[in-house]
Each structure stands twice: as C-alpha cells, then as structure tokens.
C-alpha cells in the first residue's frame, strides 16, 4: 500500500473524521490521498496557525485528538503558535507535517526546516521519521501519546518520499489497560481525607484538569459530600456548575473578589487539576502563607512544582475523587460558610443594565443559559470580563487560551468547536478589536461553511489589556495601545458575506443578539464600547485579596 494511503487508513482506524490543514509541496501526496477518500472531512483554513487552533478547538470540545496537517518550511513554522497554545493547555493533538525527501535532508533544501527541533519544547513528544516502515507504528503511537496521561500535542514529521513508498499495513495490536491505584496511593488518599475533615476553612480549586479528566460529576459529589466551597481557574470554568450554591466564582488575577477572598482566607487548598499558575496565585509567598495544600493532578511533575503540598495525589482524577469520598463527612463547615455567605453578598456584582462590557457579558450569560451554547473567547480584557460574568454549568462549554494567552486563538478555535458540535451546541465567539485582526481571515472559512457562529467583537479602539497594564505599571504612559486609525469592522465582516450588526447601546445589543440567535447562520455583532479597565485586578505583589485601585 502507498504510504499516503496507509496514513489515511490509520487515521480512520483512529476514528478521525475531521482534519484541518493547508497544502504545500511536501504534503501534497497526502492531500491527493485525502481527496480520493470521502469519509474524512478536510477543512481548508486560511492560515496554518488557524488550522492548528481549529484542530485544538475541535479537541477541546470533543475530547478526541485534533488533527492538522501542513507542508514543510513555512507551513510547519506557521503552526508553531497553535501547537504551543495546545501544549500549554494540555490539549490532545496530532500534527502531521510534510518534510523534504529523505535524501535531501540536511542540505538546506527548498522549504526545509527542522520542525522537529523547533517543536521539541512545545510538544508532548515529536517524531522525525527515519524510514517509511515506521509510518504507521509511529502515527499510532502519536495518537496514543496525545491522549494518554497528561494530554498534549504530538508532531510527526514525514519526508515526502515516504508517502510514495510501498509499505505493508501492520496490524493494530495496541490495547488499553487501566491502571489500578497502588497501596501508597490509598494511604495518601486516607491522609488527604484526614486533612479535609480537620480543616476549618477548606476550599477546592477546580482547574482545567477536571474537564480533561472528565471528572466533573465526581467533583460535584466530592464538594457536596464535605460541603466544600469551590472556586475555578480560568481553565476550570464549567468544571463545576457556576450556579451551584457551593460555587464561589472564578479566582485569580482578575478573579471575582468572592473567590479570591475564599482562597486567601482558606487554611486548606485542595487543587484539583490545577497547576498553581502564576495568574492564579500572584505572589507565591503570600499565597502559601499559613496554608496546607492537597494537590491532585494527572501529572506527577506538577506536584510540588509551583507550590509545596502536604499531600500530592497523582493519577486519574475520577479514581482519586472517588477514593476521597469513602469516609463519613464528620466535618463541620458551618462557621466557614457563614463567612463565605457574607463574601458572596458583599461582593455580588450589581448589574445595572448600563451599556458596558460587564453588562453585555451578563446579558449573554442570561440568554444563552436557557439553551445549549459554547463560549469561545480571544485574549485580552474581553476575555477576563467574559470569565467573570458569563456563567457556565457544564464542561466543554467554555474555551479560552489560558496557559499561552494567544491572541487570535478565538475565531479559528470557534470554527473547530462549531464543526464538532454541529447543531447540538451553538458557538458564541467573543473577541477584541486587536485579536480579531490577527486571525480574522478565518471568517472566510466560517462563511464558506455557513457555520452558525455568532461572533461578537468588542471594539474599544484599543489593545485594552495593554492599555490597562500601562495604566497600572507604567504611569499611564499609553504607547502603541490605541488604534488611532479607524477601520470599519462592519464592512470587514460583511465582506465575507456575514450578516453584521453595529451596536452602540444596550438596547441595540439586546436586539442584535436576539436576532442573531433567531437566525441559523454565521453572524457578527460589533459592540462599540468605550475604553475601561477590568476590575477587580488583584495586586500581584501583596496577595490575591488586595486589589488595584483605578
């Protein structure tokens, strides 16, 4: 069988039905084989970076490995930001790049780059093929690695001549065995319960690992059993129902005050699938002061990496949470809850219906929580406002670039997510006027496929988050953050054939959004908002329950 055909056969064996990518000389044999096979949908994006983000979005929504393909040289290097984004958020992906013929390697041949070397630090693992007969075993291994343990992107670089080579298709002999928790582990779990029962002011931090570990049901049961308050990280939004009485909000640098106070005052932090990133903890010395930590994570290397924990439990999240529920809840959290309820009341956000971004986000939240929707954001102020004010109840309905914070992620990711959800969930995409100019070309693909994404552009005529940083840390010396030159975003999105609403007031937004929801086609809403600052903003030097004054 020809190498390229074998690759297609293997992709089908791995149950891949959608691939994102962009053609070029060294990957053309694979395109030729893809073209002859109608059982895999191929999505041509407008840029390789978008192929990667779209495959990433597809993976975040589906839990399957997202697949993207690109050619050597510039095609491969264009993928880099997308791969790094997926790596930082532990998203399973398989990336196939074409490479120059094996006999031309190492000669600076046309479009030869060492993508193996370039992507080494931003992939879970990568392969540089040495012979055509490795093609199928390594492709299978790439899928297995991407999806096992702590998930992540795996790249496989294939010299073009291997696609033409005649290879035997090896039988698939891999089997999955689930590991049983060992004795040590069970002892640690018992100690962890002791700590929990002993704690006066415990809190759970729910991270993206809960979503990836499919453990949200166990998390709810665990929190309910011991009446533990729950905060979520940026990546953990949706891991715990945001309307649950035990939920204290999104915590972190721009977290809700109720959530940040809960963490700051806690004597025991139970981190579930969260890595104590610096956006979560702020100043680490303040953060750990007089606290105990129980750290639960799939990745043993995360335990004690950023914060030293008294108990680290590394393994399958569901198994661990189940182990932690095998004791009677003899703790008495009443006094702690009295404090927490006060925080909830004191720091509740007052939605006035005024025309500003928090109220817009609130309106979106109220509206979409009546149905099945997924929210995808870009990076910047609008992202933080969305995280603060849009409530999510179930996992895989909130998508954002957390670890890398990649502007331009949103629109192509929305494409991948909508392709996966089809008509089961509609995607609401929220971007800033800066980020949308980075990957806005993807409106072309979205329009061409008539994907019913509703794209909301928050136009504050600035790189709002940069403006905010310059205000706080650079004496309000605003430089290269304001868009003095005006462009017409309405005409821009319309030029792709996307119906667009131009909004200047709350009433106009409410009307535009309701019209957009009523129509099953791609649409854009340009929200012309003034410049403002995202509050709260925790003071990174003095602790997450101290805040910057604007």
């Amino acid at each position, binding site marked *: 069988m020809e190498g390229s055909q074998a690759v297609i056969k293997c992709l089908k064996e791995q149950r891949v039905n959608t691939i994102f990518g962009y053609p070029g000389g060294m990957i053309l044999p694979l395109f030729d084989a893809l073209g002859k096979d109608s059982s895999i949908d191929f999505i041509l994006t407008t840029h390789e970076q978008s192929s990667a983000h779209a495959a990433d979005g597809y993976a975040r929504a589906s839990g399957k490995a997202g697949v993207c393909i690109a050619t050597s040289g510039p095609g491969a290097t264009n993928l880099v930001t997308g791969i790094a984004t997926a790596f930082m958020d532990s998203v399973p992906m398989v990336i196939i790049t074409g490479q120059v013929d094996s006999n031309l390697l190492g000669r600076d041949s046309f479009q030869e780059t060492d993508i*193996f*070397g370039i992507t*080494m*630090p931003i992939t*879970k*693992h*990568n392969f*540089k093929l*040495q012979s055509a007969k490795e093609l199928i075993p390594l492709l299978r291994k790439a899928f297995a*690695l991407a999806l096992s343990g*702590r998930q992540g992107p795996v790249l496989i670089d294939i010299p073009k001549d291997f696609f033409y080579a005649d290879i035997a298709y090896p039988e698939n002999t891999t089997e999955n065995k689930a590991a049983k928790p060992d004795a040590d582990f069970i002892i640690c779990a018992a100690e962890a319960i002791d700590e929990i029962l002993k704690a006066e002011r415990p809190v759970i931090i729910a991270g993206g690992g809960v979503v990836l570990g499919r453990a949200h049901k166990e998390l709810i049961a665990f929190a309910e059993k011991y009446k533990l308050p729950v905060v979520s990280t940026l990546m953990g939004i949706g891991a715990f129902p945001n309307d649950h009485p035990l939920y204290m909000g999104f915590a972190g640098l721009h977290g809700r005050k109720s959530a940040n106070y809960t963490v700051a005052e806690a004597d025991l932090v139970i981190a579930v699938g969260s890595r104590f990133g610096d956006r979560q903890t702020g100043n680490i010395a303040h953060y750990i002061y007089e606290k105990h930590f129980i750290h639960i994570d799939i*990745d*043993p*290397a995360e*335990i*004690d*990496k950023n914060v030293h924990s008294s108990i680290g439990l590394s393994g399958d999240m569901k198994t661990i949470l189940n182990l932690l529920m095998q004791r009677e809840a003899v703790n008495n959290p009443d006094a702690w809850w009295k404090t927490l309820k006060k925080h909830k009341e004191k720091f509740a956000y007052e939605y006035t219906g005024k025309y500003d971004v928090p109220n817009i986000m609130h309106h979106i939240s109220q509206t979409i929580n009546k149905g099945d929707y997924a929210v995808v954001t870009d990076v910047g102020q609008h992202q933080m406002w969305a995280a603060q004010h849009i409530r999510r109840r179930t996992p895989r309905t909130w998508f954002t670039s957390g670890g890398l914070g990649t502007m331009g992620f949103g629109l192509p990711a929305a494409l991948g997510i909508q392709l996966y959800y089809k008509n089961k969930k509609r995607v609401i995409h929220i971007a800033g006027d800066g980020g949308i100019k980075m990957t806005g070309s993807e409106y072309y693909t979205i329009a061409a496929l008539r994907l019913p994404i509703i794209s909301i552009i928050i136009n504050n005529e600035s790189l709002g988050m940069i403006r905010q940083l310059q205000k706080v840390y650079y004496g309000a010396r605003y430089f290269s953050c304001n868009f003095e030159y005006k462009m017409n975003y309405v005409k821009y999105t319309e030029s792709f054939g996307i119906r667009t609403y131009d909004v200047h007031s709350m009433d106009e937004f409410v009307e535009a959004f309701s019209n957009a929801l009523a129509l099953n086609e791609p649409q854009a809403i340009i929200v012309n908002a003034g410049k403002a600052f995202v509050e709260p903003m925790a003071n990174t030097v003095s602790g997450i329950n101290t805040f910057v004054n604007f």
Partner: protein
Amino acid sequence: MKYQIAILAENKPGVLTHVSGLISRRAFNIETINAGYTEENDVTRINIVVNAYNETELNKVIHQMAKLIDVIKIVNISELPSINRELIMVKVKADTPAVRADIVNIANIFRAHIVDVGHENVVLELTGEQEKLAALIDMLNCYDILEIARTGPIALSRGTTPIKNM
C-alpha cells in the same frame, strides 16, 4: 550543588536533544554529559552532571525528565553509594629529554598511561575520580599543556541492583 544523574533512554534519534533541551529549558546548567550503549542494545545510558540549587530543585527536573517519552529510568546516583570515574587525555609539550623524563615520572606516580609520544610532545591518559584528575592537571600545569580532552564522569551504583530495577 553538583549532582550525578543517570538516565536510561531508548536509543532513538533526538533522545539526547530531548534530554539536554529540557534541562536547559528548566534553567539548569549541564556540567558534563555523555552517552553510550548499555547491556541492552536498544538502551542508551546518558550520564549527566547538573548544577542545581538544591535537591528540591533537582527533583523538579528529574520529574520533568521522567515525563520524556523515550526516557525509561532516571536516577540521582549522587544519593546512592556509587563508584564514579572519568577519563582524561592530556597532551603536554616535551621537547627536551629532561622534561620528558619528568612527565614520565609524574605519569608513574599517578598511574597514568603514556599513550602517545612524539618528538615534541607526550599524551597521558588517566582514569579516576575528579580530584585525582585535578591533581594530575595541577602537576602538569608546571609544564606546557597543549590540549585536554575529557569524557565527563560516569557512575555505577554499588551492589547487585542495576538502576533499571531501582
């Protein structure tokens, strides 16, 4: 602190790059690194000496390295009873019979081998622990050292248990 680490890895292209890349990415300095086949054909043993602030910091890197797909086993040999050796070759200028005789003497004292002699130079080879090598170089510094090549240390733990079974 310097730590001697032994890594068993699958003998695949890029293994050394994966390992060394990770160490430098995590902001550690590699003092020495060497690699070679082992008693098993497809297994490479990589011996590294790294400079780490303390054992906690070292363990973080060890955990990260354990995650590398091709890494089979990784052990901090420094914390085990072990034997540590390095091989060094030193080329010294010896253009008079007197100097040559001196150097042969020094070699004998250190039990170093003279592995090459030319009209104007000799090459010494010595295997041993690092202090011993340092002492030899110190002595030879009184003469004109032309060139030094060294392997970097390798280490084996004492007892019957190979590190792959630890």
